[in-house]
């Protein structure tokens, strides 16, 4: 999942990074095929080049290796809302068929939640303003739901013209990478479809782990397995963090 995610990043792109898998993905790319990837962390850190993987979004390591450190209003208003970011990475506790994401509460009543999650953070703005959004999360039946309990971050529907109605400039989610495979939205209606599975994963398994009747692309492919170099860099990154 991490390796496949890192392959989407092209050298010279600007990438808005959260802590956890997104940070690992971006730093893996920066240490393999995309050395000039421009990493932006929501703490206001621009152009960070961490040697270790940070535990927190505002680690000292991120700031001291950065080109520039700006205030939080500046990173959210000028950089993110200003449309400067090529790709943003998101994860979530729930995702629906239109890639709407929930990181707020599980359960039908916001005021009496079954599970209280951390909340929105920078996710709604990443979803709205980045040119493209890549979602990375584990593929489980609890997470891949027909309708999210709470829309923390806006995806691609149900209305097909949702994003342009809301005036969002970013294209929204273009890819969902999971531990089972890769989903991409239908270019017209925005519904996610399975376009690739990882080596050894059965389509049946993916369908079982998805609460809605998941469409499968007629040109379904199998992702390339991680190369030795990718695995070595990833192990090295993790070992020094």
């Amino acid at each position: 999942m991490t390796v496949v995610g890192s392959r989407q990043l092209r050298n010279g792109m600007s990438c808005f990074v959260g802590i956890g898998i997104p940070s690992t993905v971006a730093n893996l790319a920066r240490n393999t095929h995309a050395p000039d990837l421009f990493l932006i962390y929501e703490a206001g850190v621009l152009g960070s080049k961490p040697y270790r993987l940070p535990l927190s979004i505002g680690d000292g390591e991120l700031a001291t290796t950065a080109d520039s450190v700006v205030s939080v209003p500046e990173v959210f208003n000028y950089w993110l809302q200003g449309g400067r970011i090529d790709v943003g990475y998101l994860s979530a506790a729930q995702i629906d068929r239109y890639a709407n994401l929930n990181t707020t509460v599980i359960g039908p009543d916001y005021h009496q939640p079954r599970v209280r999650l951390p909340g929105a953070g920078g996710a709604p703005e990443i979803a709205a303003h980045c040119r493209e959004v890549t979602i990375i999360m584990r593929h489980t039946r609890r997470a891949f739901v027909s309708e999210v309990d709470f829309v923390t971050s806006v995806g691609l529907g149900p209305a097909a013209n949702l994003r342009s109605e809301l005036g969002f400039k970013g294209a929204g989610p273009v890819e969902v990478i999971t531990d089972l495979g890769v989903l991409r939205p239908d270019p017209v209606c925005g519904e996610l479809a399975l376009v690739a599975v990882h080596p050894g994963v059965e389509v049946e398994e993916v369908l079982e782990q998805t609460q809605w009747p998941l469409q499968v692309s007629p040109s379904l492919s199998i992702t390339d397995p991680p190369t030795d170099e990718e695995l070595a860099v990833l192990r090295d990154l993790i070992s020094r963090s």
Partner: protein
Amino acid sequence: MAEHLELSQAVSRYVQDGDTVALEGFTHLIPFAAGHEIIRQGKRNLTVSRLTPDLIYDQLIGAGCVRKILFSWGGNPGVGSLYRFRDAVENGWPSPIKLEEHSHAGLTNRYVAGASGLPFTVMKGYLGTSLGQIAPHVRFLDCPFTGEPMAAVRALNPDVGILHAQRADRLGNVQVWGISGVFREVVMASRRVIITVEEVVEELERHPGDFVIPAMAVTAVCPAPFGARPSYVQDYYNRDNDWYRRWPGLSKDRDAFLSWVEGSVMGGSG
């Protein structure tokens, strides 16, 4: 003009029960010493505001100081849940708390509007989200030029803004560098401003990438060496990641938390 005070004096004088208080610091410069002083002084019914509640508000909530929390991301970064926060939300212990929930950009812009002397400001956000339906200080309007839908967020002007910084001089000018989050916005938005500092120096030697908050905008400056631990202060000490990892063990259980407060906060002086 800034007064130089002991932290206990500043909290006693400038933080009142029922106040709206913003203890900010984005991962960097989190004012833990000031938070502990608030717990020691048994302040009650506070409305507390912070983008990332972090351990500092988990502690204030568990200690029963908080009636309402404004926030945008309530986790233990890189570790998991804030158990005192969740226990208050899910079970009302030690008392129920009200939530006002935002995105980072939304709460940030509430501070920006407050700092700017405006009743509100505008942003592209909240549109299409459930957040936009539950957040009480968000309204929607159309751009008067283009007709585009926009969100308006109401200004937030805390009664007290509490921040931690590297240094202050004798006059009360405060110097900060590294990740600054919403430091300037909280200073300018708050009616009273308490800033704890690692050290008070005769004269500020300027530092690359720093900025200075003039004493004019500060109510009280309080010396508090290591006052941001377990968070960090750039060029003074590192983030204590192990402590953040240990926090669930100290806080998941109510009794364990209470004995931690008793042993580590109530007895201490910082």
